[in-house]
């Protein structure tokens, strides 16, 4: 499965468009991570726990999008976009969407 955020893949031809596919996940932090983040809020600096959490969540969203694309018989997802929104305090939604296509 080819995942890309450009619309035209160099050297390949789109034979069929299959429409939009999407994947999302809502994640929240656990107490331990929250405590560390509280400390970092005083000293400043990178919140490694959060970085990892969001990266995992984004991979999960991408995976769901890819499995949806596989289900409809695509072999590539192009023009992929990511979006984040905070649902409640301490939780974030990660959303990935793109166009499922069949590439030559």
């Amino acid at each position, binding site marked *: 499965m*080819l*995942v*890309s*955020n*450009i*619309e*035209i*893949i*160099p*050297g390949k031809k789109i034979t069929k468009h299959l429409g939009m596919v999407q994947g999302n996940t809502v994640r929240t932090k656990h107490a331990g991570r929250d405590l560390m*983040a509280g400390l*970092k*809020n*005083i*000293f*400043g*600096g*990178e*919140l490694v726990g*959060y*970085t990892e959490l*969001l*990266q995992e969540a*984004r991979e999960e969203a*991408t995976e769901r999008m890819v499995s949806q694309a596989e289900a409809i018989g695509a072999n590539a997802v192009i023009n*992929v*976009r*990511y*979006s*984040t*929104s*905070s649902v409640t*305090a*301490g939780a*974030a939604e990660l959303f990935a969407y793109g166009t499922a296509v069949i590439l030559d």
Partner: protein
Amino acid sequence: MYDLIIFLTLMALGYIFGRIAEARHFKSIMDREKQYQHILTFSERFPPSGVSRVNSELVGGNVVISVDYFKRIVAGLRGIVGGQLTSYESLLERARREAILRMKETAKNMGANMVVNVKLETASISKGKKQQVGSVEVYAYGTALIPKTP
């Protein structure tokens, strides 16, 4: 009285450690920017003309950075009179440059020589007391073009 002492201690800790951390971070960003300079990044939607025979792969890098206590208080004070919030400016600048660097690092490990259609996304993740934004997340993503070996 105790509250005041705690407050002043937090201010001092935030000022000292925040300053050291920021200076160190900027230095490391500049070093790595030089190191990854040969990987070109484009915000254009299409690869530069003449590029073919490549494999493409989605790459990304993210970072969550928090502002220190001192700067948050200063920003709060600045909110009264209005104007430029330098403390948050430097926070966002650091986060963006770091995210782009991490993306480039991933691209480099894949053997890519350029990344096209780079998008940056910013989100405020945790909100501290009184709904003050404490930390930002920046995610940079793009399509890495990896030359095919004949």
